[in-house]
């Protein structure tokens, strides 16, 4: 890379990667200070998708806020539902029956696979390949059909309730899920041949956007971003919640922390999610699908937090209650917020086309950052 200080001034300019851009995955604006083709400093500008979620949480009862949790990260909405429902259950001391916990795990993992398939298609669309998104959306539609039968929605689920889930799963669901698992395992071959072994793809992501473990810790990056850098941190293993401690699954970890490692981590995570779903379907217990809840859920005075592993990293809800059923303050710590904050340090001195690959590998969903 040439010495940037010696290049004369006329090559310096500001490039606006606007709120409307095919590669920003939503309404992110990145102000790029450029020197020719090299980026001096990218400055993300947020706020184009701010929808006052934390304020709305203070104005609604705790159970009425559930649909909002799904609208934050719409690609993987069920872990958000899960975190919020489990937080209210922890505060109010409500028991969840085991069948409901298993159903929660199965549907959350299906949603995680759907989110990773969406990310896969979108990343490759940014890099210029139009075919893989068609294949991944086909598999995603299968998952959406399975989940639509029991939840009623395709995208922004409001399926979990405080105390369990809102509708039980039947044999048809179990049958379709098993058939889907078999099908997806075969489809991974297509993804391997089409993309992972593709020399053009590898040249575009190998060695691009290297995040080391120290940077992850200073910025608080979690999820596949941290796992790609060699940190084996997964909330499902570190602080097991729900019934995750009963399943046997691995945490894929990368070595170098470049975009290719983050890609491989997410592809392996899809396989691990399939393992979890299989084990959960085998062990699914009988029983009620929703526990007993009081007519009006009273949140005690005090604060409480709950962390789940969302598709993009660690999601933490922090709620301060005041004795009524309306939260006093809800803070939602979203994973993409911390993942995006590494961008200024990560992309200094990078080529513009590498910025697109690096941002795609971070897997951002902007409305969850803006909340």
């Amino acid at each position, binding site marked *: 890379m040439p010495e940037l200080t010696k290049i004369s001034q006329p090559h310096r300019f500001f490039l606006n990667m*606007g*709120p*409307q*851009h*095919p590669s920003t995955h*939503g*309404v992110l604006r990145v102000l790029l200070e450029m020197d020719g083709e090299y980026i001096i400093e990218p400055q993300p500008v947020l*706020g*184009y*998708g*701010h*929808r*006052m979620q934390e*304020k*709305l949480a203070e*104005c609604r009862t705790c159970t009425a806020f559930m*649909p*909002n949790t799904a*609208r934050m990260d*719409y*690609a993987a909405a069920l872990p958000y539902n899960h975190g919020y429902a489990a937080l209210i259950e922890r505060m109010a001391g409500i028991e969840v029956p085991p069948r409901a916990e298993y159903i929660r795990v199965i549907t959350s993992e299906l949603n995680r696979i759907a989110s990773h398939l*969406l990310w896969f298609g979108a990343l490759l669309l940014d890099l210029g390949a139009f075919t893989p*998104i*068609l294949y991944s*959306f*086909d598999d995603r*539609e299968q998952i959406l059909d399975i989940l639509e039968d029991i939840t009623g929605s*395709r*995208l*922004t689920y409001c399926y979990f309730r405080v105390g369990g889930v809102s509708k039980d799963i039947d044999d048809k669901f179990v049958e379709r899920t098993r058939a889907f698992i078999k099908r997806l395992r075969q489809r991974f071959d297509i993804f391997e041949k089409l993309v992972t072994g593709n020399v053009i793809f590898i040249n575009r992501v190998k060695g691009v956007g290297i995040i080391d473990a120290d940077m992850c810790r200073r910025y608080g990056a979690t999820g596949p971003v941290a796992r790609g850098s060699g940190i084996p941190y997964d909330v499902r293993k570190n602080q097991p919640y729900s019934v995750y401690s009963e399943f046997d699954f691995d945490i894929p970890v990368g070595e170098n922390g470049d975009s290719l490692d983050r890609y491989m981590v997410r592809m392996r995570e899809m396989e691990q999610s399939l393992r979890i779903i299989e084990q959960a379907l085998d062990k699914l217990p009988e029983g009620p699908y929703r526990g007993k809840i009081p007519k009006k859920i009273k949140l005690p005075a005090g604060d409480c937090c709950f962390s789940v592993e969302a598709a993009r990293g660690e999601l933490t809800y922090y709620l301060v209650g005041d004795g009524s059923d309306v939260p006093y303050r809800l803070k939602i710590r979203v994973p993409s917020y911390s993942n995006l904050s590494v961008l200024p340090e990560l992309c200094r001195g990078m080529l513009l086309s590498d910025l697109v690959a690096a941002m795609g590998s971070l897997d951002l969903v902007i*409305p969850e950052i803006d909340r």
Partner: protein
Amino acid sequence: MAEEKRNMLRIHSYAGELRERNERGTPGNLVEQDPGPIVRLQLAEKILDVCRANSLWPMTFGLACCAIEMMCMGMARFDIARYGSEVFRPSPRQSDLMIVAGTVNKKMAPAVMTLYEQMPSPKYVIAMGNCAISGGPFAVKENYNVIEGIDKLIPVDVYVPGCPPRPEGLIEGILKLQEKITGVRHPFPQRKVSDAPN
């Protein structure tokens, strides 16, 4: 304080001016006064309308959750390409349909206006999802940031309700837009696949 917050949300918009112009009945000095083509031929207009309706190129303007359903509509299962919207153009200068999919808030509103101004006429707007129609789940008393419906900013042709609407719903919206442009639901003669009515 709620009143002050409401006032902050009012933004100078085309739709308001259009309404005022219609009420006043006088042209006034407005930014855009499109006189239309100089020579009008009825048959040529009809043919051009059919061509336009069958080749609506949307602009990629996904803002929030509805964007994913819009992407699903463009993919293999629901496939908007069979209705003519073959490609989603990222540049507003190359598109003639703006599908506003998602919530528009106060920070985003000037960008929406700039994009709308950049589109060449004739241009059409579909408001997709409850947020674009009326603010959706965010049109509440404590709202300080969300524009309650993009028809406060730009004139809208078709409203597609849902949160988010199914891709089939959005395809129906595009078919309704074709009907609005040409007057007929399927402007191009369709080969009858079955005996079911069209």
